[in-house]
């Protein structure tokens, strides 16, 4: 398919740009990263050994080429803190982040779709206004505040759910709700706007005139077309969820890539910082690409 081929081609400079940005991250560190990693008490021999291990003693061009070459072989360097390949460390944490992002998306959809549909059907009523005020509050609420509020209510006061960690399905509920709330607010507004566009269409009037019931009109006829723009936002926001997870994971000590990234920053484990940023950014780029392709497949008007 021509348009998919073109999008795939456009992906190349984007991915290269992301790789270059991530490569230069370590070179932006003020002072000597090796000294920062080992501390002031490190011996000269240790410093030069680590510098050589990280390849920082080579010219910049060669370092860049080695970085790209390593990546091509799945080699992201070695974690200084864990004393393991970065790839393996991140591989251990990535499923937890993916699980959290998927659960947050499910929470967002479960909240947003009914609210968006009801608000559109009952346009300009109190229900509609309350739904929209609620969604505005949801967008404005930082997840590092919502998380602690949910912990106070559901863990401390009611004792229903665990405070933090990843033990069983119950421990997923609070982090997923925290991460999914802002997205639910965005999707609810989107669903409402999209439904309002569709509800005014002629074919729905025809369906009503033919005696189709109100629920069937909304669910079978309107929703199907109204969901197309929502699907795009869902795809694009899934990538954003992966990066948003960094903060939520840290609130709930969720053992994903976000928690790993902040640990790596604190430990000045720069290869691991680079690896975490790279993995999340590439997931984001590829999810956005897939959304683009899926959208082109679903909606023939985009295939230009």
């Amino acid at each position, binding site marked *: 398919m021509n348009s998919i081929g073109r999008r795939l081609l456009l992906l190349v400079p984007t991915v290269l740009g992301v790789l270059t940005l991530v490569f230069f991250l370590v070179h932006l560190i003020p002072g000597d990263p090796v000294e920062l990693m080992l501390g002031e008490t490190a011996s000269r021999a240790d410093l030069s050994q680590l510098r050589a291990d990280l390849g920082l003693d080579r010219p910049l061009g060669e370092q860049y080429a080695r970085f790209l070459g390593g990546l091509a072989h799945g080699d992201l360097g070695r974690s200084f803190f864990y004393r393991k390949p970065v790839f393996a460390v991140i591989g251990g944490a990535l499923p937890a982040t993916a699980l959290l992002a998927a659960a947050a998306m499910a929470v967002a959809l479960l909240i947003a779709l009914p609210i968006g549909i009801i608000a559109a059907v009952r346009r300009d009523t109190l229900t509609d206004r309350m739904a929209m005020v609620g969604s505005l509050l949801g967008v404005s609420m930082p997840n590092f*505040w919502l998380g602690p509020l949910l912990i106070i209510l559901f863990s401390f006061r009611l004792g229903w759910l665990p405070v933090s960690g990843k033990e069983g399905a119950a421990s997923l509920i609070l982090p997923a709700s925290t991460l999914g709330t802002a997205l639910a607010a965005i999707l609810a507004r989107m669903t409402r706007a999209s439904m309002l566009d569709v509800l005014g269409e002629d074919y729905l009037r025809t369906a009503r005139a033919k005696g189709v019931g109100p629920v069937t009109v909304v669910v079978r006829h309107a929703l199907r077309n109204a969901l197309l723009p929502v699907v795009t936002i869902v795809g694009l926001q899934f990538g954003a969820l992966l990066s948003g997870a960094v903060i939520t994971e840290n609130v709930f000590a969720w053992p994903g890539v976000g928690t790993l990234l902040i640990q790596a920053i*604190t430990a000045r484990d720069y290869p691991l*910082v680079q690896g975490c940023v790279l993995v999340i950014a590439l997931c984001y780029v590829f999810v956005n690409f897939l959304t683009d392709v899926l959208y082109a497949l679903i909606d023939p008007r985009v295939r230009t």
Partner: protein
Amino acid sequence: MTATAARGPAAASRIKLQVLPIPALIGALILAVMIALALLAPLVTTTTPLQTDLAGALRGPAAGHPFGQDRLGRDVFAQVAHGARASLLIAIAVVTLTALVGVATGAAAGYVGGAVDVVIMRIVDIFLAFPGILLAIALAGVLGPNLVNLVIALAVMGWVGYARLVRAQVLGLREREYVVAARAVGAGPWRIVSRHILPNALSPVIVQATFGAAGVIIAESSLSFLGLGPQDVPTWGGLLSQGAAYLLYAPHIAFFPGLFIMLTVLALNLVGDALRDILDPRTR
């Protein structure tokens, strides 16, 4: 040439004294309170934000300490009030910096076109492909936690939205009759862009800056929450992070800074919505 004529035909009709809708008035009022709190922080607080009182550690709201005290007995209200200074200052600095860079690059791309446009827009695409908050976290993490680095980390991504917006505006305006007329009478590119095109392209930039400020406040608080913000001045995110460790015994420490972040972001969103409705005729 009168000021209106210099700005082109659209500007005069757009700027009308309109009665703001109630949500926008509420937003403007909240913002005014936040700005007053930031400006008057030393006058409205009875203690400095760093003054400790170990006997009152972790105490809840009471007379003299309306928002309670933190683990070292410091007044939470004083910290929230001084935190407003840091948050608003960072938001203004980042929005100004990103808007200036974005408007300049977007105008260059849109007006000059050709290779300049291609190069700038390719860079914009790459930045847009990168999750903003992640780059900010990574940058603040490697640069080190202080105020200037935080502003840099937040500004690095922010300009691209403005650049794309202004480029589109400039592309739409550069062949308008009044611009062609200015070119015909010998006005140079700098004069045309700065006097004739940009004043007409700025409405969406103002709207974007309002929503952008809301985004910056959330991002800045997120970074401060993660320990990547300035360590020597109180910030809402930093205070919230500190309070997160005492949720069971002293939930007020985390509650109040979070409430202020949410109210400020909500206010900016409300004002941004109203500005968009007023300044962009298509959304009316």
